[in-house]
């Protein structure tokens, strides 16, 4: 297969060299662990433990509430200290389970036991994925088991492992593919067990030759698998780009990849599926990259969920003097956090520590829109960011919806390219909740009118 690329996109500096060659280190937290009940898309989970209960590693502590929700498991052994509102990822106080770490890491019963996926039915596999609380680890946090139950299972032709990792600075998926290619490939095999007629594709950007080699070695001899090498460009790992790359068709506005016969999962998610199904290990830890100009020790860590960011990034050792901000996620899509005392959870793939605040610099240089059309040229979705931004600035949400503002994936590409330094993506982020509410209202009206 040739190298795939897409229309639009930008080339921000990758600075992956900061951490790309650093092997994973397991980070063992010392302090209390905080598990927000909402660390996925959908309804918050409901606690199943009480104050002073003893819990073990991998034990269920909160249960999914409804279809779009997710189980949460403890990542340490210890005692439930309290269930109370604590600062979470969104920077607000949200109901959380606080666990006092006993430092023993005693596993719960059955965790780590081997099972053979080849004897399981699709339903059994999906149930295991659901039980293990697996959500999209690329950042969206959408419950994975829902993705594995499309309306048209017999039409699924491609399972794509998304290893593009196009966001600058982040290297945890790269390291995962280099160190544990078998996890990713076995995860794909487990999913193929559900969709026996599908083929598996591992999509990797060409700046990760080690990962490509490791995966190619792992899949050699199995012709259901292939590696799709992607050109280096941001946002190469967007779901729509990958769906187009394998199926040759463009996803319509509002459509799901499954409608074109494709299921896309992040490589880390697939590794989690493998561990949940074959090793009976629920999702309680993940790979996380610490990077950025202000990080004294950039590297890749296996982080237990609930670990506070302040434990990983201590002011004495890890943050350089003069650091201006810390971003949860990468520099393009991440969000700045107001406080380091927030727990790391399922959706977090990186902590980026920055000596310079580019937003501040941009704000100083901001001018009015010069109608250059650059934002339109680079948007990977072919949207009209300039028109969308104008609609938000005029508070005209209907117009924002009409120019397809709701399709925006908030990748920040337009923002990066804009020579007038307009804060485009922030405007879209700001407008989305209200625009979605308006859209639902419009739809309800339409249905009521029929």
């Amino acid at each position, binding site marked *: 297969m040739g190298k795939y690329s897409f229309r639009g996109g930008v080339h921000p500096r990758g600075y992956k060299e900061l951490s790309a060659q650093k092997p994973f280190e397991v980070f063992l937290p010392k302090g209390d662990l905080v598990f927000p009940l909402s660390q996925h898309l959908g309804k918050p989970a409901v606690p199943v433990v009480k104050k002073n209960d003893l819990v073990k590693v991998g034990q269920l502590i909160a249960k999914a509430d409804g279809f779009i929700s997710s189980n949460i498991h403890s990542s340490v052994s210890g005692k439930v200290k309290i269930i109370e*509102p604590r600062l979470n*990822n*969104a*920077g*607000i*106080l949200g109901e959380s389970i606080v666990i006092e770490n006993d430092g023993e890491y005693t596993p719960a019963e059955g965790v780590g036991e081997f099972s053979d996926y080849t004897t399981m039915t699709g339903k059994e596999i999906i149930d295991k994925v659901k039980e293990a609380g697996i959500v999209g680890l690329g950042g969206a946090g959408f419950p994975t088991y829902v993705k594995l139950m499309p309306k048209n299972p017999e039409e699924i032709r491609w399972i794509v492992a998304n290893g593009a990792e196009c966001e600058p600075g982040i290297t945890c998926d790269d390291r995962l593919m280099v160190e544990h290619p078998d996890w990713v490939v076995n995860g794909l095999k487990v999913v193929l067990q559900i969709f026996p007629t599908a083929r598996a594709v591992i999509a990797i950007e060409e700046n990760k030759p080690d990962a490509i080699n490791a995966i190619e070695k792992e899949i050699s001899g199995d012709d259901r698998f292939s590696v799709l090498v992607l050109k280096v460009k941001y946002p190469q790992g967007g779901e729509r780009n990958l769906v187009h790359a394998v199926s040759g068709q463009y996803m319509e506005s509002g459509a799901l990849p499954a409608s074109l016969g494709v299921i896309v999962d992040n490589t880390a998610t697939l590794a989690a599926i493998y561990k949940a199904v074959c090793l009976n290990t629920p999702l309680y830890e993940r790979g996380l990259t610490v990077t950025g100009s202000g990080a004294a020790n950039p590297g890749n860590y296996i982080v237990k969920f609930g670990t506070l960011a302040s434990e990983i990034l201590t002011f004495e050792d890890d943050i350089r003097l003069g650091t201006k901000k810390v971003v*949860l996620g990468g520099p393009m899509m991440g*969000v*700045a*956090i*107001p*406080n380091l005392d927030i727990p790391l959870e399922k959706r977090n793939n990186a902590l980026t520590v920055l000596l310079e*605040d580019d*937003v*501040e610099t941009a*704000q100083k240089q901001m001018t009015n829109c010069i109608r250059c059309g650059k934002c339109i040229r680079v948007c990977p979705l072919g949207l009209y960011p300039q028109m969308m931004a104008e609609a938000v600035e005029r508070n005209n949400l209907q117009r924002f919806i009409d120019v397809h503002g709701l399709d925006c994936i908030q990748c920040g590409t337009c923002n990066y390219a804009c020579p007038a330094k307009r*804060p485009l993506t*922030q*405007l879209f*982020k*700001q407008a989305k*909740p209200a625009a979605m509410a308006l859209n639902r209202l419009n739809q309800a009206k339409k249905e009521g009118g029929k």
Partner: protein
Amino acid sequence: MSSGALLVITIILLGIVALLVGVMLVFAGNKFAVAVDPKESAVRESLPGNNCGACGYPGCDGLAAAIAKGEAPVNKCPVGGAPVAAKISEIMGVAAGESVRQVAFVRCSGTCDKAVTNSQYIGIRSCSAAAAIPGKGEKLCQDGCLGFGECVAQCDFDAIHIVDGIAYVDRTKCVGCGKCAKACPQHLIEIIPDDSVYAVACASRDKGKAVKAQCSAGCIGCRGCVIRCKNGAMTFANNLAHIDYEKCTGCGDCTVKCPSKVIVNRLSPQDQAAEKPAS
């Protein structure tokens, strides 16, 4: 045909057409005439003509029609207030009833010296933009006024201003149209009767301990006010005290022991001074 004859024929033909159209228009005018209620136009005359939409009708014309039909009460216009209501009640021949002026009230007292800030906000200088970002602006408190003045931009009457980091309503200028309340992403602005003496100037839904760490002016939920109020006007929900303005007699018992001094007297001279911007 000579050009003279052509001219005459054209004039005659056009004349006939004009006559026919004229007759038809007169006929149609009579047949489809809309009787304009003289009351409606009189009511319309009395309304202020701001077309602000605060009454909930499409502009002053809309409200005039509704009042004339008897679908809306005569004191529906918040901008005109009592004098306009009296005029309209005369036209309509009904009693105006008691109409109390409604004004906006901002439920936050977290000025720069009282609210704790934990970060620096860099980005679009608007309340809704800041509210969409983790941490919600610079204050530690997540429910308070963000101070970027989205409400100020909405007000047509120059009645709301940012002073010392939070929004203040000028009671004398505010007409209670509610546009600011709609704009506030923190849902801080309440439209209350202007004669209410006391109001709780805090909107934090956090528990006492958390509030204490965030702001020295926040409601910590001690419920002292609920216990002290003899009229049952104080209620407590979502970790926050609230006054029922109907029941409140303005005795002020609730304020005596409030440790955060968060129940403000809206009518007292010094609080009034605080509500007026030092422009």
